[in-house]
């Protein structure tokens, strides 16, 4: 029997390394010895979210050299969303051993996380080119001591970006997704966006591209590959409408303590 190919979305890649013991076991059990793949688009999503958070925190630590000040700055930052605040506070808490470590060690550990992240997350995963050719997926971390930088900003003008052509090529498949979302109100925002975008794909350029992340990942998955995600609600309906095999890995929902 030929070995099955598993196509991992961003959530599974992150959970495989940074999930709870329970979810890591679930993923390991579910993937078994299948060959693992992902798309470069997922790598870009990791750069834009997890890696960027780590680099942001690192810059705050080297700037303040005081853990309590950094905790406060993150907690009361007026310009970042609650979602990003929660993510950053969680990473900061664990990196600093709940504030018990010296700031020096927190900086060193965060630097190790930044430099080692790709190896930690992607060493056993083959990466497939994305139909979008997103150039941000190829960006490397630059160390300009004492800080790290990575380019994650999309200016809409990147000449390498092929998102418009890609979405035009996949218009029929996107139309299928759009019609399957019509009956579920919880997908209202995405449904409305797709309504405007189909036939006018150029509006997907720039930050709007992020709204299509899950759809792009599913479209990038080669035929016959099974898509894996912990984001069952969104992926199940997209995969079903595309006729692509999907396995959702359940993450127990609970508030983190501490």
């Amino acid at each position: 029997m030929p070995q099955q190919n598993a196509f991992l979305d961003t959530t599974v890649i992150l959970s495989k390394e940074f999930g709870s013991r329970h979810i890591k076991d679930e993923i390991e059990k579910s993937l078994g010895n299948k060959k693992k793949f992902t798309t470069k688009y997922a790598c870009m999503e990791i750069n834009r979210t997890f890696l960027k958070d780590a680099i942001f925190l690192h810059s705050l630590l080297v700037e303040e050299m005081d853990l309590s000040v950094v905790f406060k700055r993150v907690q009361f930052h007026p310009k970042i969303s609650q979602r990003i605040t929660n993510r950053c506070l969680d990473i900061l808490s664990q990196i600093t051993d709940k504030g018990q470590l010296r700031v020096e060690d927190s900086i060193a550990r965060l630097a190790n996380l930044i430099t080692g992240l790709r190896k930690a997350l992607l060493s056993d995963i083959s990466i497939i080119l994305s139909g979008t050719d997103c150039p941000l997926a190829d960006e490397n971390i630059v160390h300009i001591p004492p800080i790290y930088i990575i380019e994650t900003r999309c200016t809409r003008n990147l000449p390498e970006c092929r998102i418009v052509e890609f979405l035009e090529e996949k218009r029929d498949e996107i139309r299928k997704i759009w019609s399957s979302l019509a009956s579920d109100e919880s997908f209202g925002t995405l449904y409305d966006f797709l309504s405007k975008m189909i036939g006018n794909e150029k509006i997907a350029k720039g930050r709007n591209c992020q709204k299509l992340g899950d759809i792009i990942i599913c479209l990038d998955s080669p035929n016959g590959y099974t898509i894996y995600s912990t984001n069952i609600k969104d992926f199940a309906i997209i995969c079903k409408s595309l006729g692509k095999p999907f396995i959702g890995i359940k993450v127990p929902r609970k508030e983190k303590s501490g």
Partner: protein
Amino acid sequence: MSEALRKIRRVVITRIEATCEEDTSLFKMLRELPEEVLRTHSVASTEFPHFTQERENIAECIQELKQSFDDPEDRQIFYSKLRTLLVDLRDKVGLDRLYFLRAINMCIDALENTKSELIESNQVEALEFVLRQMRERIEEFEVNQLQEILFNAGLKPIPKLEETAFLYE
């Protein structure tokens, strides 16, 4: 590859071979090291001037760990001792030696991410190799290469983050 480097590679491989007669995985890993890494790390570092005693203690503890490898209780005891020695060393190092501090934290995290009962002998060899190459004035690219060596041995030289992933859904 120059003749001098070939000679160094031969010496390194012979030494590793001698110490890894039964477990050849480290030998294989080192044989596949890029030339640049070999050039940098072929000779064990002696630049540990401010922490001579700590260095000796760590080197001794690694030997104790290797010798006790087949006894799970002793293995745990020396594993824990090694971690403690590294934590003690870490507490004495400041940001003026940032890359040295990174290397120490890398080893501590690698030890914490793999429990003593699950560590394999080639991973202990890799840790020993990395600890032997550490210098107070180690360069950034060298630390990144040492991190790569630990990753390639199957260790995780980064901080453990639990239950963080779901915040990214």
